């Protein structure tokens, strides 16, 4: 077991865990941040996506030891003072979910994309989000939600 200090959603959280434990497992099982989901544990579905230093990262493939060197943002950290982020708001407005299990990862994937590319084309959205599975098949609405978020950001909404 090692002691780590994680910077999660702006707070410094102390955890004891084996160095090789995945960030996903630490978030869910030790910090009770269950908004980050397990889908495959192999980096193939995107359900566990978080932001590490602003970039979408599969938390099932990152050890707690390496995550401790970064700034971590999970789905719980996007809402600020009761106000949803532009991407969260856009997903809600478009109804871009069914069971919602993929939604956390989708939102963080889209947040990362819009950080790098403020006004992505549909092709760029599809390429950036290709690693995320929505088994309910909500992709068309998710694409619309990403476009809507892009417009909200252009109008000055908070990221």
């Amino acid at each position, binding site marked *: 077991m090692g002691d780590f200090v994680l910077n999660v959603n702006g707070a410094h959280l102390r955890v004891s865990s084996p160095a090789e434990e995945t960030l996903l497992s630490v978030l869910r099982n030790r910090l009770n941040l269950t908004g980050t989901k397990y*889908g495959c544990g192999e980096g193939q579905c995107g359900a566990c996506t978080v932001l590490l230093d602003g970039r979408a990262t599969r938390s099932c493939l990152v050890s707690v030891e390496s995550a401790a060197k970064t700034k971590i943002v999970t789905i719980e950290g996007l809402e600020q003072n009761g106000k949803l982020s532009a991407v969260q708001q856009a997903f809600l407005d478009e109804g871009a979910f*069914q069971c919602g299990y993929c939604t956390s990862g989708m939102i963080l994937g889209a947040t990362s994309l819009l950080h790098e590319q403020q006004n992505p084309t549909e092709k760029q959205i599809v390429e950036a989000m290709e690693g995320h599975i929505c088994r309910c098949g909500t992709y068309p609405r998710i694409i619309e939600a990403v476009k809507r978020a892009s417009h909200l950001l252009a109008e000055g909404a908070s990221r």
Partner: protein
Amino acid sequence: MNHRVEPATEIAQSISPAPRGISELDRRDFLKVLGGGLLVCLTRTSSWAQESGRAFGGNELPKELSAWLHIAADGQVKVFTGKVEVGQNIRTSLAQLVAEELKVSFEAITMVMGDTDLAPWDMGTFGSRTTPTMGPQLRTMAAAARQILVEIAAQRWRVAPATLTTADGKVTDSQNARSLAYGELTRGERLVKTVSSEESLTPAPEWKIAGTPVPKAEGRDFVTGKHKYPSDITRPEMMFGAVLRPDGFNATLASLDTRAAERLPGVKLVHDGDFIGLVAPDALVAQHGLSAIQAKWNVPAQPSNQGLFAYLKNNPESGGDDGPQHVSGSVAQAMAGADLKLKEQYTVAYIAHAPLEPRAAVAEWTDGKLTVWTGTQRPFGVRDELAQAFHLSPAQVRVIQPDMGSGYGGKHTGEAAIEAARLAKAAGKPVKVVWTRREEFTWAYFRPAGLIEIKAGARRDGTLVAWQYHNYNSGPAAIGTPYNVANQLIQYHAVKSPLRQGSYRGLASTANHFARESHMDGMAHLVGMDPLEFRLKNLADPRLQAVFQAAATRFGWGRLKSTPERGFGIAGGVDKGGYVATCAEVEIDAASKRVRVRRVVQAWECGAIVNPDGLRNQLMGAIVQGIGGALFERIIFANGRILNPHFAQYRVPRFSDTPQVEIVLIDRKDLPSAGAGETGLVGLAPAVGNAIFAASGIRLPNMPMAPQSGVPGEPDPSFRG
């Protein structure tokens, strides 16, 4: 391990353990939970009594159907149902129906779903039954409650009930310019009333809340990560469980050494007959413990994909054929006299549900009572499985189903619940079990593989005269043809499935529509008619005609001419009260033979629409999900092992597979609402297959039609998805 063949048919599927009523003890607990307020009870409704004869194989439903609805002093309404929310949006649509009949705002309603201690017994959430059965049930309760509130107000004011009106959660006496909120009427009172089922319901054309695109209930919790799925549940002192799986199906244990695992800190091993599992203080140690177990298994030789369909045809369930499902006229005579004949074998593969949230359960034993939070479409079925496994009465078991990461028919059973309960019992602490993706792909059950043989005959003018149809293993739902054919022989054959199989979204309907609508396309080609014209010529059902015409019009059918690179196809049908017609445009790359679905137009009619936005979401999702089974999804197996138990090897539809989707809704407010979770899926595969045929002249009778690779013993696929 469990290798029993799960019932494949929707008829068999719905044979659940005998339903049980809620005991008096439960009722008292229930009242304690709720406190004061109005409790509406109903002795028995005619719709449920009828349902019992059909759907429960003659089992008696509980005589007492109670406590569907509770109005608190603050006017908040709780509605109780054993149906579960899995993404199909019934938490929203059922609340709309209740709000409509009760005359309260949508926001005043809270649905309490899938909790076996709080909700009346329910068979399960499958078969597109929620809207046509639970909808009217809850509407009846709400209408009864509203009537009681009117009567209470009338007594209080000493006026005739008929002079009072209800709206917005209030009873109003407009003659005397006064009103009372429902909460004011129920405050401090605990009323239990028995009411008749003969309530008059608000007709759909007068709906103000039902029939509108109300956004998903509690939607904000899904974009903030607040919603707790079954796998998110934690309990004080909870431990993590894991179960050792054999090397293959039907394996027997040859040797076992658990010493290394038991040396790990905090690990407790549980070995009981076939069951080998462990609990650990955290999830990582549980996985380490599992890896440290040394077990050797003997796995017997078993069937594989190679030769599967011959195997299905040659291995009937004991008892032999089920007898003809449907016979009219003489197929033999009609075929002999037909001008044009077509014979084909169609197949569908085993496919996986692959819900993004795998099976998960948290079990807790308290004073001999077992509580399990788990993802299941049949909370009462799982309660009974648990009661049986641990020799408890159902009243000693509570199953709670938090809205889950979907199921698609894949979560009817309680494996994870039983495993968690077993480990929790041994550990003396609550235990969580979450299946890995590999476990979910291997140890769940599959959509049945099937073989369908069709022989059909037509006259030169395009009139169908003969239809012979044999379905081996994929199931009897939607096996009949909606087309007029004088001479028919349609038969379902139950067979011994090499893999464990069970329910699936659109189960047999997908296979039967694929086979029938592909064959209809082939017949149209044979008689030299346009595929739409051929269908309409042989079709009398105006509802099915209407969706075909609506889809064709929006799609531009008739104006679009297929080329080798671009094909246009159409298909349709009816099942579970839903009418669907699907037009698909596919693009075929000349060099790589890669098939892409570019555009889909789907017309849909299921009676009066309860929530058009939720309905569109369901239909769009069904189309996207349908692309997987149509083009590339399939389980590859050999000798009791699943060979592609990962998303890297089992291709599911992704963003880049998504076509342009257009949905045309036909809202028949004059007809009862039917369910829409499943039948939206069945038109896609044949429409795509027919489009590929239109482009290439090649009929692809096997689903998936364009898999990523061949399997041993099969020719390489001509097309790739």
